[in-house]
């Protein structure tokens, strides 16, 4: 199985495909990302960016201490981020561990949050160190429990030792498990891939293997969604669209904690992949603390002053 006819499933064809990619110059990519970070987003454009960013948040809790109560609270927040202001959009999805998927789905449906997705981290998240049958079962469990999005991790060990075909095959198999029930996000853990060349390579590999989204990080490793890494991934989805006419989504996750950072991400999208990507079906931001800062900035734009943190809800 493969997608778009780019790779026929053999190691030779995958190698040929990856070898056709041009390199990434680190200094140049850093400079471009730094330049785009100087964009000054004010007034109406800032207001639009805040609401757009809220709708793109994958509101996340991935802790060993997660409980049903905590996840239900997160779901309430996801549907109505500001209970006093119904003009605030819902977030894109809640992102939870596998065993919390059913609880999240049930609670979302109960409170009128049918439109909010449930994303499950999968394939032995965050390390990816498990056998293939375990990873498949992990994914199947999540889908059976009602996950509409699967955030899988790649085997970074295999990638770094050049066993690209193993990484490719894993993604293909998980995509098969997803079928038409769930969207597949593929997490690279760019902090472990380290180089931008690797990020570009992983992006093209995952897209040809059937990823719907490519995602920077688990949130468990730093650095995570740095601006140049997101830039390189946005260039990859743009170039992949030029080849296939298919738009793949991008999800930075980890380290995006305030409104300024989120707006910088939207500027990167706007001026790299293009405005077509500025919607929750093609761009998500994996975050937890970010949402409250977006809400506080939104209130500030309406009221003209910063409210006390007591005016936004904790999860």
């Amino acid at each position, binding site marked *: 199985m493969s997608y778009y006819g780019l790779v026929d499933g053999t190691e030779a064809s995958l190698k040929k495909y990856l070898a056709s990619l041009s390199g990434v*110059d680190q200094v*140049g990519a850093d*400079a*471009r990302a730094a330049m785009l970070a100087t964009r*000054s987003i004010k007034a109406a454009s800032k207001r639009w960016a805040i609401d757009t960013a809220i709708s793109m948040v994958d509101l996340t809790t991935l802790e060993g201490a997660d409980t049903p109560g905590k996840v239900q609270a997160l779901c309430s927040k996801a549907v109505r981020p500001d209970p006093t202001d119904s003009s605030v959009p819902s977030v894109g999805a809640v992102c939870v561990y596998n065993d919390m998927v059913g609880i999240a789905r049930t609670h979302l449906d109960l409170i009128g949050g049918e439109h909010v997705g449930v994303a499950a981290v999968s394939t032995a998240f965050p390390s990816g160190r498990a056998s293939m049958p375990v990873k498949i079962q992990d994914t199947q469990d999540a889908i059976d429990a009602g996950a509409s999005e699967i955030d899988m991790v790649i085997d970074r060990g295999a990638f770094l030792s050049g066993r690209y075909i193993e990484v490719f095959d894993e993604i293909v198999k998980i995509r098969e498990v997803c079928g038409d029930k769930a969207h597949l996000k593929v997490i690279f853990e760019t902090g472990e891939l380290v180089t931008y060349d690797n990020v570009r390579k992983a992006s093209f590999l995952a897209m040809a293997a059937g990823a719907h989204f490519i995602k920077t990080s688990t949130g468990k490793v730093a650095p995570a969604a740095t601006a140049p890494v997101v830039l390189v991934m946005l260039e990859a989805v743009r170039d992949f669209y030029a080849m296939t006419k298919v738009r793949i989504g991008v999800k930075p996750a980890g380290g995006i904690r305030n409104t300024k950072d989120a707006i910088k991400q939207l500027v990167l999208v706007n001026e790299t992949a293009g405005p077509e990507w500025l919607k929750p079906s093609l761009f998500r931001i994996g975050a937890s603390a970010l949402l409250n800062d977006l809400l506080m900035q939104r209130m500030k734009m309406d009221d003209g002053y910063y409210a006390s943190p007591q005016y936004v809800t904790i999860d």
Partner: protein
Amino acid sequence: MEEKLSFEYAPAPESRAIVSIKPKYGHFIGGKFVLGTKHFPTINPATEEVLSQIALAGKADVDAAVKAARKAYTTTWSKMSGKERGKYLFRIARIMQERSREFAVLETLDNGKPIRESRDVDVPLAAAHFFYHAGWADKLEYAGLGTTPKSHGVAGQIIPWNFPLLMLAWKVAPALAAGNTVVLKPAETTSLTALLFAEVCQQAELPAGVVNIVTGDGSTGALIVNHPGIDKIAFTGSTEVGKLIARAVAPTNKSVTLELGGKAANIIFEDAAIDEAVEGIVNGIFFNQGHVCCAGSRLILQESVADEVLQKLKNRMAAIRVGDPMDKNTDLGAINSKEQLLKIRELSAAGDLEGAQRWSAPCDLPGKGFWFAPTIFTGVTQAHRIAREEIFGPVLSVLTFRTPQEAIDKANNTPFGLSAGIWSEKGSKVLWATQQLRAGVIWANTFNKFDPTSPFGGYKESGWGREGGRHGLSAYLKGVSHE
């Protein structure tokens, strides 16, 4: 939430409240502002608003400036220890940093360049030149130029309009560090930051007459070049004027450095990092509206990647934000003058006539002021005027090649030799190409990067001598040979 697919950036203008522009300026001679006689207007090229009246220096003004510079040289500056001179340069550098926003706003108003560039490039680099040369002032005997290098005396310095403050720094900082005093003339259309710099000299309590600034046009420049009281001429500007200066100083004892035009090749090999190369092309030709002597104005593209690179380049050019230079999100500002705009239009029309294909980024140009959309010409050959003459605007000529040697031959086939760019992920190819190219500055996998420690200057008709680094310093010291 309704899905709206447009992310229009609201205007984000920098405030001009920080600068106070006087209705009329004189010259800065002997530490004081003195009245001029005749005046001409200086305008904001983005709006055609008259900003101020600038004095036109005649013979009496230039005489007075040279006399003040001579007096300061003999009585004060040449007798002062290098350590003390260095203190003044450090002080000037710090004040420039403290007043950086003022300099940036004034530069953008008078020149038309985007505030992002004046704020992030021109002003910080100008301060860096003073910091760097401040460090040299007490170490001249360690510059590798003999144990007792001597200053020339009075330096006459004529600078262009493309980087008004930065070019001032390139000229004044090394001259002062080496122990010279200066008479400087800013370009006719961009005198305001030089006059603000004169205030900085006062604020730093620089001894009177060490820096003198006279404003005016080419006639003032000619008075400086031909003045018998001047020991050294430093000029940055067009090759045409550079040749006139070379002729004028040939029968004299004056020492001279010239930094002139260019028609730089930016060579993209098929193994380049394509996205960063595209950024490098944009930065090479659209930085500062292409008003850059070392601009990468000839794109020399390997045929095997030409289609891909051109498609990406066009997409990228469509994202260039053209408009109000004071807006913090503007990438490409106004053309500096009507005269320059006409020259760019004339050469672009020649490109059309000669059969090259023009493509301009779709953008709305403001109604007032001087504007030219970012433009590329494909199908250009070596025989086209737009491949040979310096356009000095946001216009890129695209040529292609098949083998590395062909790229080098085309790159070198020009009377200029200021700069060049090479894009390849293969180190051995980069090093080979660097050795073949006849240009003073060669960038590999980057473009238009400047640093005070790095010598800058040209081969052939691009100039004589170097500015920056130890090589640049040597141009302001006597009894040592320099290129």
